């Protein structure tokens, strides 16, 4: 493999990084993710470049420096001293983004509760931040990034206001080194309505099967949520007024209400988990009433309310593309075909793997399945790169290979969404990432055991 490199010394070090084989054996519970290399100047030459913008380059160069993409093109000049990778026969892609994970919060969901920090007790936790629960040494980090998922949204779940989601690169020794946006979005689980949402059925059971009581209990929860949002709005205004006029009574700080102010001012989007058509509609209606900027996550029935979503300009993170159809008489491809239908209807969407964070590495195949069911291939790629970046307002940094963006770059043996494709080189935040994982480690330990 050394022939790939211009300079022998770099060749050796990058080969070590790529193979992971020369790294010391230390497969311990959740500690194995090899450390990133330095933010140097790197050039990937003679490669097919899938920029993700629609303008691919059959044979070109990508130049990375200081963490950013500084050159892309068929004839981009390679700066002196750059460490070069020969990309002959390889493809260069922007890193994928999964907008719907609990990665870093949820190591072993069954039988190891101590490794699960996905939800907090109580119903209203707007000041709880996923960022503070992230385990940077989760074994999920390594295995997810090596397929090309470089960035994830990790979010809290449960309750009514679950807390704040965070946007992370899957590289770094600490949460601050990983975080692109520590406080990315608020998560509000609006109590579900209607029987199609299934949630109501469970809710009804809790209420002893009394529909009227269940409806009232739901209404009380929604009222409490609205009250808290109105209090937060008043709180923000009181502080604004006091800032302008110190003669006014000094308002007392309240960390809970303070955390909601950015969401009420449209500075922070609100993620609403909703799958049933009625729940999607009520989340959007609720968001508009409370002046929140909604993002729907889940979106199982999004295609059936597509005109509504388009009219209200609300994006969807689809987490259930691989789920079984929820109704017996649904077509067999009911969920596989949701992305294609949303594209056709002009609704902004992104695809998420959606399940247990250990499986986030399957994200490319979910997009592939959408492509096998009507979504054009280039759109499938965008639905896991550019579109999630746009939905979360970070398309200036992520989602494509363009000059000025963060250098999250995947160099593959072929189409990144194909399961047979392998990753040869990986850069996150402009740092070369060794391709070793807990899994390559165990493979190395046992594959030749006699």
């Amino acid at each position, binding site marked *: 493999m050394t022939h790939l490199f211009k300079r022998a010394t770099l060749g050796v070090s990058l080969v070590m990084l790529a193979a992971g084989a020369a790294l010391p054996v230390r497969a311990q*519970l959740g500690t194995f993710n090899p450390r990133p290399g330095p933010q140097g100047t790197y050039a990937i030459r003679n490669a097919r470049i899938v920029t993700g913008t629609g303008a691919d380059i059959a044979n070109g160069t990508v130049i990375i420096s200081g963490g950013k993409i500084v050159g892309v093109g068929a004839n981009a000049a390679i700066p002196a001293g750059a460490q070069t990778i020969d990309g002959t026969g390889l493809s260069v892609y922007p890193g994928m983004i999964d907008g719907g994970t609990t990665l870093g919060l949820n*190591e*072993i*969901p*069954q*039988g*190891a509760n101590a490794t699960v920090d996905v939800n907090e007790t109580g119903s209203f936790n707007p000041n709880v931040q996923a960022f503070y629960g992230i385990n940077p040494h989760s*074994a*999920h980090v390594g295995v997810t990034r090596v397929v090309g998922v470089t960035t994830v949204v990790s979010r809290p779940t449960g309750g009514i206001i679950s807390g704040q989601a965070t946007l992370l690169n899957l590289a770094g020794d600490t949460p601050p080194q990983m975080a692109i946006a520590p406080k990315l979005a608020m998560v509000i689980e609006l109590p579900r309505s209607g029987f199609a949402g299934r949630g109501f059925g469970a809710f009804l059971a809790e209420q002893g099967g009394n529909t009227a009581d269940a409806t009232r209990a739901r209404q009380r929860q929604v009222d409490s949520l609205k009250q808290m949002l109105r209090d937060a709005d008043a709180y923000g205004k009181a502080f604004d007024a006091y800032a302008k006029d110190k003669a006014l009574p000094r308002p007392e700080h309240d960390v809970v209400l303070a955390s909601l102010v950015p969401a009420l001012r449209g500075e922070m989007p609100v993620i609403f988990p909703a799958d049933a058509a009625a729940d999607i509609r009520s989340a959007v209606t609720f968001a508009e009433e409370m002046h929140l900027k909604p993002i729907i996550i889940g979106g199982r029935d999004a295609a059936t309310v597509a005109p509504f979503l388009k009219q209200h300009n609300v994006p969807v993170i689809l987490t259930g593309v*691989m*789920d*079984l*159809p929820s109704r*017996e008489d649904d*077509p*067999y*491809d009911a969920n596989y075909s949701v992305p294609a239908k949303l594209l056709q209807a002009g609704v902004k969407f992104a695809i998420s793997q959606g399940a*247990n964070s*250990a*499986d986030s*590495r*399957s994200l*490319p*195949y979910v997009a*592939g*399945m959408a*492509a*096998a*069911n009507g979504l054009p*291939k280039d759109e499938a790629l965008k639905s896991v790169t550019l579109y999630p970046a746009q939905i979360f307002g970070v398309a200036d940094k992520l989602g494509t290979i363009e000059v000025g963006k963060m250098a999250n770059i995947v160099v593959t043996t072929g189409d990144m*969404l*194909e*399961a*047979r*494709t*392998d990753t040869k080189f990986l850069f996150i935040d402009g740092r070369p990432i060794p391709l070793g994982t*807990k*899994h390559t480690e*165990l*493979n190395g330990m*046992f*594959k030749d*055991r*006699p």
Partner: protein
Amino acid sequence: MKISLLAACALAVPATIVAQQATPSRAMTARPAAAPTLIKNATVLTVTKGRFENTDILIQNGKIAQIGKNLTAPAGAQVIDATGKYVMPGIIDPHSHSMSDAVNEGSLSVTSMVRIADVLNPTAINIYRELAGGVTTINVLHGSANTIGGQNATVKLKYGRPVQEMLFAGAPPGIKFALGENVTQKNRSNVVIPGQPSPPRRYPTSRMGQEEVLRDAFTRARDYRTGWEEYRAKVAKGEKALVAPRRDLELEPLVEVMEGKRLVHAHSYRSDEMLMLLNLAKEFGFKVATLQHGLDGYKIASEIAQAGTGLSSFADDWSYKIEAYDAIPYNVAILLRHGVVATINSDSDERARRLNIDAAKLVRYGGLTDDEALKTITYNGALQLGVADKVGSLEVGKDADLAIWSGDPLSVYSSAETTFIEGEIYFDKKRDLDMREKMAKERAALEQAERGPRPTRATQIPNEDDK
């Protein structure tokens, strides 16, 4: 006379074996064979004999009659132009719970007497969804609640047919065992809800107890067998006034296991528990057919190979519980390289629909060739279930269980378009879309219909199928 007949039958032909073999029922034999089909000009993935471009497959009497170039369609044959498309054997899922109305009889540690074949629902919609993923044969197993779960059923997904026709004729019977966390119930939530009864703790609650449960069961089964052998010896000697041992439906299947007539499919995760079972089986004189899941199998690949045991695993599922934390996607490849017959399974009605993608992952992770990867969802499964003489590859004389794919089935962009079992089409994408359109029209018409009066012959929506 009467007694000796009973003696001869009691163990040689147990009721459960009859159940799986009695499938050529009246309904089936009465059915005329499907019309011949000629699939033309496809890329044919035989899985065992290589791949052939621009090749035809002739299906007659439910079997693969010919594979070759420029075959001639017999009179009355339907001809399918598969130019640009791929044909592969029907996918075999060695671990499924589809169409089973009950999964666990987990109240006792040993429930070898219960049978999946008694609770199969032939109308389960997930059968159709799996057909749409190119799947034709599944191994329906009990769950993993107890050490010996019950008797499994190998099933062909003949959606719309009576369940008796779906049971795979001639497939050897089997039994599900289970080891590890699910049996010990250590991964259950320990939350106690006041006022609610807490679930009973059932022996065993440790891996120590699991070994003991198996040892105890097979010790009893061995004594039971000895009782019958002694009885038969006396009958053979012409002794009179004998009383046959009481039949024991719990122990009979275990005797069949020891006699090599019933395949053991053992849910297991950790290598130590797998090895325990392999050694215990050796002691009692039988082979374990497959380790199911076997996520840590790669740690003892040589021992599994030496035992002649197969292993059926997930492609890349891991970390969902403690005993799955060392699971790696290289597992199946390592096992294959050590000579183990290894497969990928779904254990899920959802994942069963995309086993082709799971197989493709092994190319990435284990460096398998495309054919080796395809074998893990076809031929190897047929070997594990003892039906490789009938299904699992495209070979002349085998059952015509196959699917036409839109492209290379190992590509995420491909999907099954037409799925055949024994030469009959059970899924066809175009037919499905046409049906949808028809149903939408019917629904719209019904919604427009005048409310109130019962529909009469005159007001009924015409059904084209009636013609």
